[in-house]
């Protein structure tokens, strides 16, 4: 898109269509509201899909929006680590679709989408029904790549949980931790990039350390990593030392941290150079790929993820299919719920613009990932992203991590803000409430 065109377009817009801001209320553009044309189907009712459906309706209430999601209730991965640490209940991280249905008029279909025909513009559901679309939004999240790690298949995941999709897997891991004797060893194996939630494994061991320090203080945590560097590394390591002493040991790639084989029955992990680690509870965070429907729709490439056009997140491979969230290749944006939500808002606006024959807006996306190391110890990383020279880039001078030398009050505030963030993003995504104001 050349900037001359952008200038002219913006000028025209300003002259002709400046809205009365104060009167606009929740509907962003009265110009769009009147139109009805357009059927949009969303697949996936998680952070990306639910947000996209809601914002499509906000921008253009006349749109016909259907959201396909098999589960009636969605368990968020965000704060599922806090459940493992004993700082939240499962009932506090589950969200339904009633408000999206009732207030926004989104048709929510509790089915699994089996296939997409990009030519015919249809989605086939598990019950055999076929949904036609003008525009399709896929936000299927991740699937575990069971081919990616020797010995780790679906049966193995019942013994060595990944808990990288929240719900039963998270409960299984928690019950194993509860059953473990004091003095036992918990091992987490972390994958190479890219994967869902770069700080996730490190927040998880922090939370498990919190649980151990309260209930099983003689236990140990070993983190085997397929990387030499990880998100918020300095801050995490400072926090671990400060709060948990030497309970957590991290072994990076160059110290033979990469796990290449697992034996679910003996709970053994074998490293690249042949070392065997046996744990009493073993949490394998395995390699991942875009959710299966993205492969079916033909939008993934050889990497297993979805290349998208930066301005709109329309697939580079199939027209009229937009993909947001973890399934995409959006680096430097991380695979976070925050980004899935941000991408969905931008993409909803792009779809509405396109259906109305207008150019997409200039996208801006933000991210803030909080990690809760202990009830009064939070850290964060933030970023602002734009399309620069045809690529998604982080804006220079913006973003970054919490200061390394911050005081206890700062860390406490960031832990509180993590809760506030959770309560806000679930409202923005599902129109539901986070149930608790504080962590303690």
């Amino acid at each position: 898109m050349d900037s001359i065109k952008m200038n002219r377009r913006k000028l025209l817009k300003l002259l002709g269509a400046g809205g009365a801001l104060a009167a606009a209320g929740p509907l962003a553009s009265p110009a769009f509201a009147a139109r009805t044309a357009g059927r949009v189907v969303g697949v996936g009712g998680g952070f990306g899909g639910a947000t996209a459906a809601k914002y499509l309706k906000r921008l253009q209430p006349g749109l016909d929006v259907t959201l396909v999601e098999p589960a009636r209730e969605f368990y968020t991965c965000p704060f599922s680590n806090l459940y493992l640490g004993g700082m939240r209940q499962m009932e506090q991280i589950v969200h339904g679709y009633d408000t999206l249905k009732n207030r926004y008029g989104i048709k929510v279909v509790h089915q699994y989408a089996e296939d997409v025909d990009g030519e015919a513009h249809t989605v086939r559901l598990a019950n055999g029904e076929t949904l036609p679309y003008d525009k399709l939004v896929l936000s299927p999240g991740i699937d575990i790549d069971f081919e990616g790690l020797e010995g780790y298949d679906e049966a193995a995941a019942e013994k060595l949980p990944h808990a990288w999709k929240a719900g039963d897997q998270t409960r299984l891991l928690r019950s194993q931790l509860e059953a473990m004797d004091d003095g036992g060893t918990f091992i987490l194996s972390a994958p190479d990039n890219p994967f869902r939630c770069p700080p996730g494994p490190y927040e998880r061991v922090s939370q498990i350390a919190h649980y151990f320090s309260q209930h099983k203080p003689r236990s140990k945590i070993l983190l085997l990593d397929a990387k030499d560097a990880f998100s918020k590394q300095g801050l995490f390591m400072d926090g671990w030392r400060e709060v948990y002493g030497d309970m957590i040991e991290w072994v990076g790639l160059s110290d033979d941290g990469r796990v290449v084989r697992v034996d679910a029955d003996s709970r053994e992990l074998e490293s690249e150079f042949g070392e065997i680690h046996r744990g009493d509870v073993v949490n394998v965070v395995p390699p991942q790929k875009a959710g299966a429907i993205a492969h079916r729709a033909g939008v993934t490439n050889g990497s297993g993820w979805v290349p998208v056009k930066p301005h709109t997140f329309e697939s580079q491979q199939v027209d009229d299919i937009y993909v947001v969230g973890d399934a995409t290749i959006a680096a430097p944006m991380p695979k976070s719920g925050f980004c899935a939500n941000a991408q969905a808002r931008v993409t909803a606006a792009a779809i509405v613009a396109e259906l109305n024959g207008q150019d997409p807006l200039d996208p801006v996306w933000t991210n803030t990932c909080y990690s809760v190391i202990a009830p009064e110890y939070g850290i964060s990383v933030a970023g602002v992203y734009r399309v620069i020279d045809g690529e998604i880039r982080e804006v220079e001078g913006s973003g970054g991590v919490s200061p390394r030398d911050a005081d206890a009050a700062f860390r406490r505030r960031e832990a509180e803000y993590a809760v506030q963030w959770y309560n806000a993003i679930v409202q923005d995504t599902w129109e539901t409430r986070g149930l608790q104001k504080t962590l303690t």
Partner: protein
Amino acid sequence: MTRIMPRHVIGLSAAALLLFGGQAMAEEPISYEQASLLASTCFACHGTDGRKEGNFAPIAGRPYESLNAQLIAFRNDQVPGTTVMNRLAAGYSEAELEAIALYLSGITDRRRD
């Protein structure tokens, strides 16, 4: 299409929209739609239209002048004790922050909180 533009918006249109990253653009007005997209980047922490109240300072429907002054102060890293708003505000031009302040100040409907 026949709406009258508030004074703020006219003032806004004259402001330079400087994109970061060396790619300086000519002066550009910020459209209403663009302003609402910019403001929507606040919603993940402050709720839809900034209407979620809790540990963060409320932002929906606050006076334009104070919102704008606060955002600019964050951008210049002049607010003691800030945790993340300085890191985020640094990703926007002053004109964009004005547009965000303008959008949020116009949110008067609190029924859905």
